[in-house]
Each structure stands twice: as structure tokens, then as C-alpha cells.
């Protein structure tokens, strides 16, 4: 579609809108500037303030939040500092859970995307539509549904016991696996769509050339297809990994105390009088830094790939 249309410039449509670009963009700048950029900047400031006991902050500079995250000074804060592993463990667990969910999404999402992209053009839209519908269903409802399905005496366990595959119910809820499944289920369409877009642009003449030279299907897939559609795969992985990292619903509803992730850790800091706002802000800053690093690496690699 886009290829048939000449490149649009202001000149093509007269300079009609050039002079009012400012007023047209002003609402966007105001809304996102004031209600997102400014709050994030403020959050950065908050992470360096002193905690107040009833929730909220005292306007006094302090490194206590980051200190609490990385260092353990004993119960009364008077012992020599040693490395604090509690929160790093939570981050590490979140990264691991998100990575497993991403791998699961790729394992299921790639063949699905390939299959859809190789359908006749008329039916592709329908397949894609089927894949995207669940994404638009409320994430909370999807997570609750999954919990209902996999709980100890839920339909899945009943069915498995009914056909005699297992003797007792599989304890799925409150395990790492349940959280991974929940994340996988939450973000699967995010993997399928970019991979699909990449496969759709892939020129199958390469595969035919490889086949003519006696490469098997799977060798062709590994040596020819994967390197070419890699940008789509990386985009899909990021789109699954990043929201998984800060996910709240899946770990909260499907997991237990042993599957505590970053999202719940942040959430706890803002609940009632037990919270610690500067610490919550600091954890959010660290999470956002991780995400920005991932996005930067992606921007770098895709800029290189795009030039080739």
C-alpha cells in the first residue's frame, strides 16, 4: 500500500499545516509532558528523599533508598555494610521469569507467525485477527481465567485426571511455572505480530535457492531464514520481555510468596502506612534503567541491521 503512494510532504498538500504545527502539537506536548515526563522526573527526585512514616516523603536529600536496595547494614543499621541480596534476587528472578516467558512465546510464536504469513493473502487477515482478539480482552480477566483453568481442582487438572494421565492434581498455581505461563499468555500476541511482519517480507526465492542446492528445510530455516527475519524476532522478544519484567498481575494472581517479582515489590511500597515511597521510586528507577538499556541496545542493533 505505502509503496504505491508517493512520499508525502507538506508541499504535496500545500503548506497548509506547516504554519500551525505548533498549535496542533501543543495538546500532546502538554499532556505527555506534564503528566508523564514531569512525573518520571519527579519520581527520580523522590528516590533521593527521606521516607516519612505514614507514607509520602520528607524533603531531605538521602541515599537511603538505594542504600537499602544494595547494602545490608544489619537490623539497627550500625553494622558494617555487606551486599544486600534480597532485592537483587527479586530482580534476578524477574529477569529469569521474563526470559523464560519470552522463550516460550518465541517457541510457539515463531511457527505460528510463519504459518500465518504463508497462508493465501485472503485468509491471513482472519488468522491475524484471531491471534489479536485475546490481546484486547482485559488482562486481568485473562489472568483470572488462566488461574481458574489451572488451579488444583480446576478443569485442566480434572481433565488430565479424567483421561488417567495423572493420579492427583498437578500443583500449578503459586509456582514459577504458573507465573511463566501467565506472562506467556499475557504477551504471546506481541511476539506473533512482529515476527509475522518480518516473515511476510521474506523473499521465498532464497529458500528455493537453498532447496535447489540440497539444503534441507531445517538447515534452510537455520542458515537462511532466521538471519533474515532476526530483526522481527528481536522486536518480538523485546515486546514480550519488557512488559513481563515489570508485570504485576500474573505474579500477583498466579504466583505466591516464592515468586515475588519487581511489580509486586514496587506495589508494596505504595500500599498504606507500611510503604516506603522513596524506596518504591528507587526500585522503579532501577527497573526503568534496565528497560532503557534494553531499548538502547535494540536501537543500536536495529540501526546496524537496517543499514545492511
Amino acid at each position, binding site marked *: 500500500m505505502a509503496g504505491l503512494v508517493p512520499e508525502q510532504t*507538506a508541499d504535496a498538500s500545500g503548506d*497548509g499545516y*506547516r504554519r500551525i504545527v505548533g498549535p496542533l502539537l501543543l495538546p500532546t506536548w502538554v499532556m505527555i509532558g506534564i503528566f*508523564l515526563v514531569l512525573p518520571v522526573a*519527579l519520581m527520580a527526585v523522590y528516590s533521593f528523599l527521606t521516607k516519612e512514616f505514614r507514607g509520602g516523603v520528607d524533603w531531605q536529600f538521602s541515599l537511603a533508598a538505594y542504600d537499602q536496595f544494595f547494602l545490608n547494614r544489619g537490623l539497627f543499621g550500625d553494622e558494617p555494610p555487606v551486599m544486600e541480596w534480597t532485592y537483587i534476587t527479586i530482580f534476578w528472578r524477574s529477569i529469569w521469569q521474563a526470559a523464560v516467558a519470552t522463550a516460550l512465546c518465541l517457541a510457539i510464536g515463531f*511457527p505460528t507467525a510463519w504459518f500465518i504469513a504463508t497462508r493465501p493473502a485472503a485468509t491471513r487477515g482472519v488468522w491475524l485477527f484471531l491471534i489479536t*482478539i485475546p490481546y484486547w480482552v482485559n488482562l486481568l480477566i485473562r489472568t483470572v481465567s488462566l488461574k481458574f483453568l489451572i488451579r488444583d481442582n480446576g478443569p485442566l487438572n480434572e481433565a488430565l485426571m479424567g483421561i488417567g494421565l495423572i493420579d492427583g492434581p498437578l500443583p500449578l498455581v503459586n509456582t514459577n511455572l504458573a507465573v511463566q505461563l501467565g506472562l506467556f499468555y499475557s504477551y504471546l500476541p506481541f511476539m506473533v505480530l512482529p515476527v509475522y511482519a518480518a516473515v511476510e517480507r521474506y523473499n521465498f526465492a532464497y529458500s528455493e535457492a537453498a532447496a535447489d542446492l540440497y539444503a534441507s528445510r531445517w538447515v534452510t530455516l537455520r542458515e537462511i531464514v532466521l538471519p533474515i527475519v532476526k530483526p522481527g524476532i528481536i522486536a518480538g522478544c523485546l515486546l514480550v520481555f519488557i512488559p513481563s519484567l515489570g508485570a504485576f498481575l500474573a505474579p500477583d494472581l498466579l504466583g505466591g510468596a516464592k515468586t515475588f517479582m519487581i511489580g509486586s515489590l514496587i506495589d508494596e511500597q505504595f500500599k498504606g502506612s507500611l510503604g516506603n515511597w522513596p524506596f*518504591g521510586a528507587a526500585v522503579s528507577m532501577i527497573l526503568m534503567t534496565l*528497560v532503557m538499556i534494553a531499548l538502547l541496545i535494540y536501537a543500536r542493533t536495529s540501526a546496524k541491521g537496517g543499514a545492511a
Partner: protein
Amino acid sequence: MKGVRHYPGFLAVTLLCLVVLYAPLLVIMAYSFNGSTSITTWGGFSLRWYAEVFTGPEAERFGQAAWNSLTIAVMAATASTAIATAAAVAMIRGGAFRGKRATFALINMPLMVPEIVTAVATLIFFAMIGLTTGYLTILIAHVTFCIPFAYLPIAARLQGIEGHYEQAARDLYASRWQAFRLVLLPLMAPGVVSGYLLAFIISLDDFIITNFVKGAGMETLPTAIFGSVKQGIKPNIMAISTLMLAVSILFVTLSYLINRKGRKSP
């Protein structure tokens, strides 16, 4: 040999993918029609849980929450679509201008920042400026994060419309506003409607940000459901979920059909 496009097993994985995506939803839909009070045993087909949703002890709470969700979604979608339409016209039809890349990054920022971080930052901001958390704060937050969702389909649509139509209108002495209202806006309408519907769904679905900025006593449908689910999944929750599911699917289907029709027409 079925050609290089065929990989054995990929159809099976695709079907598995669809089963995984739909099984939980179908199960909860089926059980919402369960006549039994126990969620584990099947007691025959019944609409009692739907009746309970509208007349039961929790009806008032969920009714209020649904009303809040709906009104917020309508207002947030309307505002964010208007803002995004103006932005799309400037970005696609405004030529090159200073700060274009920065503006593009700004529009997409709500998609880049993890939701929970947005939630925390927004809460801190409202607490600091002393705005009482409640209906208004939810609405402001929703308008903000809905902007990119409304922007993407509108900009995509606008990109596919040639400049000649407006040029012709301008040559025939239409004012800039007339050319926009009578020529460009009708042409980009499918994108605008699509953007509106997506923003609406996104607002209706949001849990994390709403949960942070809602304040005490204020509930939207997702936060009310979350509160109930914490004490176990009850059948009336399944009925509410099924109703919401139906609304979501209706909206996405509408958006899909409008987009498809729009792609054929000009």
C-alpha cells in the same frame, strides 16, 4: 514436496497457540453459565449469575464501578483521539520541523515506560501537587497513556492518503479548515474511529495505573474485580468477565471491520 513455505508441525503449533489463547476464556465463559453454587461442579445451564450481577448484593458496587469505567473510557478516548488526530496531522502533513523526532519519541513514551513505573510516577506527581486522587486523576492518567494508542492507527491511515485531494479543495478556494473538515477528515475517518475504539478498550482495561491513582473508595471495573478475586474466583465474577469479554470482542471486531472497509474505499 510441498514447497519451501511448508514446515511440518507448524500448523499444529499454530492450533496449539490458538488453543492456549482461547481455552481459558472459553472455560470461564462456559462456567459463567453454571447453575451450581460451587465453581468446581457443573450444575446445568443457568443464567443465575448474570441475574446476580445485576440484582445481587454486590450489584451496586459493581454497577458504580462499571459506570465509572464506562464514563472514564468515553471521555479518555474522546480526548486522546482529538489530541492524537491533531498530532497526526502535524506529524504527517506538517513537513519537516524542529523537534519532530523528539515529538515522535514523546508520543510513544507511554508505550516505552513500563506501566508500573508510569503508575508510580503519576501517583507521586498527583500527591505532590496536592490533587486528591479519584475520578479526575484516573481520567487524566488515562487520557495521557491512550494518546499513542489512538495516534498509531490515525497516523497509519493519514500516511496512506495522497495530498492531491486537499490540494484540489484548496485550489477551489476552500479554507484550510474547510479542506480539513470536508476533505481530509472524512478520508481519515476509519483511522480516527479505529484509534478511538482502541483508546476506549485500553482505558477500559487498565488496571495497574488506575489501581495506583484511584485513591480510597473509588473503583473502576478492573479494580473492583481484582478486589473480589483476591478472596477467590466467584461465579458472579465469571459472569462479569464474560460480559466484559463480549464488549471487548465487539469493539475489536468493529475496529477490524471499519479498518478493512476503509482500506478498500479510497
